[in-house]
């Protein structure tokens, strides 16, 4: 399920990702997987090295652990933000309480993932950070033959009007701003519903099922596809 393809990627070259992690096994796992997905991945083993590398602009995105030798992950991020370095940073940590997450985001992190994590979840979020969503000032979103008018709150596909409940509209809007990206169930819960907890049941799947039913008509090619084991994606029909 590689979600990165050069054809869709607006960036000219492969994005460079710096992994700041002192645990060698995890670092190896992440760097290896990143490279297999076509990214240019490098590795720093402590906060100081990470700080210097990021200051020098040697990466387009950083994945940083919190508990690092020499310079704590959060301190590294705060220093960078203080110096005006705005590159997206995804925090990876075993510290998973709500408080920890809030602290991480407040320090300047752009996303927060708890260990243990599924590699696909990590990749989906890395991609989401690299490809910032469509400009918020746009009043119309268009993906393939699916069109969403944000002012009139109207959705139509190929002239067929689609009636959506408010919650379904929010869901579809989120996906239409991230076309071609894998969105995990956790991302839906956090960003669309702003829930900090994980329901036990397959809540997201059921919602997605209803949305699909409305968006993908009986004779139309599928635009909402499930990414097995990871989440869902909206893409223009091929």
């Amino acid at each position: 399920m590689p979600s990165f393809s050069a054809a869709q990627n607006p960036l000219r070259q492969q994005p460079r990702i710096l992994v700041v992690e002192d645990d060698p096994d995890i670092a190896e796992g992440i760097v290896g997987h990143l490279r297999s997905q076509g990214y240019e991945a490098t590795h720093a083993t402590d906060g100081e090295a990470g700080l210097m590398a990021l200051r020098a602009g040697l990466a387009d995105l950083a994945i940083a652990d919190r508990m690092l030798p020499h310079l704590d992950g959060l301190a590294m991020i705060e220093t960078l933000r203080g110096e005006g370095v705005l590159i997206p940073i995804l925090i990876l940590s075993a510290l998973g309480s709500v408080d920890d997450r809030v602290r991480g985001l407040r320090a300047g992190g752009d996303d927060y993932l708890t260990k243990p994590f599924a590699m696909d979840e990590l990749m989906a979020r890395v991609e989401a950070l690299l490809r910032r969503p469509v400009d918020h000032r746009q009043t119309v979103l268009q993906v393939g033959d699916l069109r969403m008018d944000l002012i009139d709150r109207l959705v139509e596909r190929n002239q067929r009007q689609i009636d959506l409940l408010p919650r379904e509209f929010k869901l579809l809007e989120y996906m239409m701003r991230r076309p071609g990206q894998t969105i995990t169930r956790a991302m839906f819960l956090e960003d669309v519903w702003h829930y900090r907890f994980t329901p036990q049941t397959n809540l997201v799947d059921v919602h997605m099922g209803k949305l699909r039913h409305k968006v993908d008509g009986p004779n139309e090619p599928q635009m909402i596809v499930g990414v097995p084991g990871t989440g869902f994606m909206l893409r223009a029909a091929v």
Partner: protein
Amino acid sequence: MAFAIGLTGCTILIFAFVYWQTVRLERDRIGSYLTAEAAQAAQEPAGRLMAELRIRLTSDLRRVSYGALYDDKGQRLAGNVVELPPGLLADCKPRRLDVPDRLLDQPIQTGSRIMLVACRRDDGGVVLLGKDLDEVAALRAVILHALTLGLVPTVVLALLVGALLSSRALRRVRVLQQTISRVMHGNLHERLPTHGRRDDLDQLAGGINLMLDEIEELLAEVRSIGDNIAHDLRTPLAVVRLKIERAAAAADLMTAEAASRSALADLDKAFAIITALLRITEIENHGACDNMSPVDLSGLVAEIFDLYEPLAEAKGLHFTASYDAAIPVKADRHLLLEALANLVDNAIKFTPPGGRVGIAALWDADVPVIRVSDTGPGIPEAEHHKVIKRFYRADKSRHIPGHGLGLSIVAAIAKRHGFQLRITANQPGIIFDLICQPADKSRQVDIALQ
């Protein structure tokens, strides 16, 4: 003991004060009398004064024992004091003196001091009047005697009573100490003795007993968690191990892949348990209520209904929400959402297709309540209080997947807010009421320690 000593000290001080004031009063009385007389005598013509002195010194010895008139050169003109005692100024002020070596013509026998007043006359002479203070000395002696007589029994009594009371208290304290020592050495069942009196020691013992009850309960819970973790985490992990073994020994890639994926799912289940346990601890131990703001219960119910409606529909359940006007409550919105979601999650999970699930925000006798009801298998009355313990699963529902910690999370959230969770049978099914009004916390302990 300290109290007895204090009491004694105070008593002595009081007696001393009484003594001092009484003696002073008497002295002042004599002094002012003498001064008044001397001042008057200073104005009288010399002849008459001399005659008066003679009379007074022979017949009025009770009030004036000494007197004399001197001329401007200090020579005695009349009276019984030979000369003006050295150091006595003629300033018309009473002075207390030791008896000088030569006061009168004949030696005098008086043990006490004397009080003298000397006033200068217009013609330069000095008139002297005085009195010895043996009356005052006698008064002093009487008072001292009385006080001493009174003081001794007071001190003895105070010491006795003090010793008695403190020995009683000490004995009780010693018993408490011994009991505590036994508890500390592992006998958690023991409780401190109380005597039905509502005095400080009894209340303290009562409070400590309640603490011990709580500690015993917590320890039991921790022990059971240990047992449950052993079972609930080890089982999925054991299965994981099996599957990975199978994957390692697989003859073809497809079997290996299938076994690995299955093992991953089991691992995720184990992690979900750990996360939930940590979440409960985080909620319980976060401390006092920060993040509290006014929350509309009706809005909350509407949101959760919106979220879970598709799920209920997919399962063929009849799902309803009921709420009227806004019901404001001071709470942490995210936590309440989580609690409500857990309750609804459970209701939908356990109610078989065709059943009913309802959520409501309502007033129950002026108290705001969130109610989640279902027509599922319910929970036996006897187990209502057990159901919020970690990992509890009613026998009827062991087959349903999930980690059994959802209600523990709800209970932790309720406790954090000071709210109560009430469980009643729905016939069939169960009703969970989250009563969103802080009750008096730890009622018993508060009453005991007032």
